């Protein structure tokens, strides 16, 4: 094994030149020739530069994979690509569980640290909303293995429950939170029925269609939802205390009650704290669920539907329950989103939204709760970190997304199955 093979530079050069030529052809027309009216202006320096970078990069890569270090990491990549199941070892805590108390303390302390930095506070708040969404979709896609491309529909419904509830029935945040979860779950069930007959990607496109239908109804039903103009949504209250500068919902402002100076951060801090506790509860719920018969039935059904059905598992209730649980989470997340934004309209719930949530789940490792949390934080905070790139922001985000998938095709976290031990053993 130790014998060193020579590096085939000729091969590397061939590869590099070929890649460079393709790059030149690909970048050539679009970056090199800019349309101006019905004519084009040539700016060939850019495609030449890009092609040069690609050639050089390809050459370095071709040489590197021939070195021993390169071969080793290539082998590691291959190993990562093909999955495999790891079962938790023994009863000891793994590193993820050891981190839990730190995460809890950090999470609770965060709003007070960020009190003077409202921007990052809101970004973290938004990321936390996506953690909740990711956890919900994780049940549907990660655990039950049902590909759902229209998850944002339930999210939208949750947000509109708060906005419409406040507008027509004088409902506050807390009432809407409960109602949105019930409503979301019912809608999930409604969608679940026709979908049960379908498999894999047919299911995906039906959920996508369902999402478009919900969004179009929200847009077109102007007399009720306000259509594209949207509607405003209230902030949560703490036993009747409000967090705005002046009382709007008939209560007393929080800062007046306690006699402290007003700060716009209070409202976000309060929403953050509720949401944080909610997310913690949701995580505990998910962890427990995976060990319960229902959770195990989901995973079993994902692995082999026919085997499950022949063993007497009722696939209808199992699938429906997954859809309902997922939709329930989304409904709650919608309420938090509406109160965070103070305003809802259909542009917040486009297909891209569903795609982002799905990206969180897949990048998180399809089933790993820690993974979902990390992926949500990364994917939602990344575009904000990239704001310094100005117009290149979304481009950079897309590139990072592709690179992350190539780097970790099975997600950031490797799924570790909980180990089942007999009682008393």
């Amino acid at each position, binding site marked *: 094994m130790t014998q060193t093979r020579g590096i085939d530079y000729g091969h590397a050069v061939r590869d590099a030149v070929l890649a460079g030529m393709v790059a030149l052809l690909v970048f050539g027309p679009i970056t090199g020739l800019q349309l101006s009216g019905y004519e084009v202006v040539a700016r060939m320096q850019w495609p030449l530069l890009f092609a040069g970078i690609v050639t050089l990069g390809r050459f370095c890569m071709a040489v590197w994979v021939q070195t021993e270090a390169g071969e080793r990491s290539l082998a590691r990549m291959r190993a990562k690509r093909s999955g495999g199941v790891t079962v938790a070892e023994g009863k000891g805590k793994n590193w993820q569980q050891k981190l839990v108390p730190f995460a809890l303390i950090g999470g609770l302390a965060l709003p007070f640290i960020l009190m003077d930095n409202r*921007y990052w506070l809101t*970004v973290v708040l938004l990321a936390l909303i996506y953690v909740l969404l990711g956890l919900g979709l994780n049940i549907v896609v990660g655990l039950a293995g049902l590909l759902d491309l229209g998850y944002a529909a339930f999210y939208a419904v949750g947000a509109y429950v708060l906005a419409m509830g406040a507008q027509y029935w004088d409902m506050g945040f807390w009432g809407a939170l409960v109602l949105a979860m019930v409503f979301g779950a019912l809608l999930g069930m409604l969608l679940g029925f026709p979908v049960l007959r379908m498999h894999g990607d047919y299911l995906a496109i039906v959920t996508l269609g369902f999402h478009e239908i919900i969004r179009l109804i929200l847009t*077109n039903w102007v007399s009720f939802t306000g259509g594209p103009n949207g509607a405003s949504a209230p902030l949560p209250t703490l036993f009747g205390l409000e967090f705005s500068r002046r009382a709007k919902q008939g209560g007393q402002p929080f800062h007046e009650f306690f006699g402290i100076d007003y700060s716009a951060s209070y409202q976000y801090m309060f929403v953050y704290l509720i949401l944080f506790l909610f997310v913690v509860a949701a995580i505990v719920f998910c962890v427990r669920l995976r060990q319960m018969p229902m959770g195990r039935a989901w995973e079993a059904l994902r692995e082999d539907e026919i085997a499950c059905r022949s063993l007497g598992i009722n696939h209808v209730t199992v699938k429906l329950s997954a859809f309902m649980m997922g939709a329930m989470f989304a409904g709650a997340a919608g309420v938090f989103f509406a109160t965070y934004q*103070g305003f809802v309209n259909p*542009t917040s719930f486009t297909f891209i939204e569903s795609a982002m949530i799905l990206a969180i789940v897949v990048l998180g490792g399809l089933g790993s709760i820690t993974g979902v949390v990390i992926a949500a934080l990364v994917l939602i905070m990344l575009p*904000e970190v990239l*704001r310094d790139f100005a117009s290149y922001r979304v481009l950079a985000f897309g590139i990072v997304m592709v690179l992350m998938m190539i780097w970790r095709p099975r997600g950031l976290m490797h799924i570790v199955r909980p180990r089942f031990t007999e009682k008393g053993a």
Partner: protein
Amino acid sequence: MNRSPFKKTLFASVLCASMALSGVAMAEVLKISVAGPHTGAYAAFGEQLWRGAEQAAKDINAAGGINGKMLELVKSDDACEPKQAVAVANRAVDADKVVGVVGHFCSSSTMPASEIYADADILTITPASTNPQVTERGLPTMMRMCGRDDQQGIVAGDYIVKKLGSKRVAIIHDKDTYGQGLADATRAQLRKNGLTEVLYEGLTRGEKDFNALVTKIRSLNTDAVYFGGLHTEAGPLVRQMREQGVNAVFISGDGIVSEDFATAAGGNNFVKGVQMTFGADPRKNAAGKAVIEKFRAANYEPEGYTLYSYASMQVLAAALKGSGSTSGAKMAAWLKKNPVDTVMGSKAFDAKGDLQVSDYVMYSWDDKGKYAEVQ
């Protein structure tokens, strides 16, 4: 060990120096956020806002800035999504510590973001959000540099009935805050004039094929079509109307004010005779001519909202100077009392923060892809 005191001193002195430098810089710069869709489907409008504000900042700084303080612009991208608008608004307030905002573009972004600016007492001037609700919510720091949908609708509605004498009008919109608001306002004015439309429907933004809708318009024998929306949909719509032989007059609002409208229609011959409402052309204004020359010298045609954005910057600068304060409420109060000379002429604001005089007039497109006021 013996070197560490030296290191510490060096570090401390560097720290002091950098703090002092940043302190100096802080004192001399006033940051202004230019918020709008700099990426995404509406990026063309974001570019207009940015170009206008950029040129204005350059000109104001060249003339000595605001009492010696230079203006610095921050590009805040909301992609016309309310969610991102909230994020950038908080960023502008907290991280960038701006003293004023020019933006946002879409009304649906302006509304949630303006609540945050109002809370932080920052003056917000939107050069483009025409939805009445933007200023109707009673925020003390919200001002508007452009007209409102309801004003535009009145002009268009009256024109259709009284000047054109149309009997069968179809109203189409793009199901967006701006487009539908405009269509609704026009419909209300038409009905006030005793005319009920024969068709009121919305198309989907981002599509290009409206042939089915056009055939429907054809079957209804309309003599006028009002479109509430942007040029990206208006272009293909008017082209397909003409291709199918529908010769009804095409009328729209300021969302199609862009020479790209002719491009979007795929030829100048298709836009000939299209009518639209727009503010009295700033490009004809004496004050505006010099500024327009500057834009053209930089090989950029200041169209659409470019000059609105420029004027918004001028208003913001005047308020900073005039009120001698960076408090948004004080600046807004000053603006509501004092008219400001801008590139678009002298502008005065009413108590809500809207322009006192809305100067919407009708324009008509010719077969060279240019528009001129209807006499």
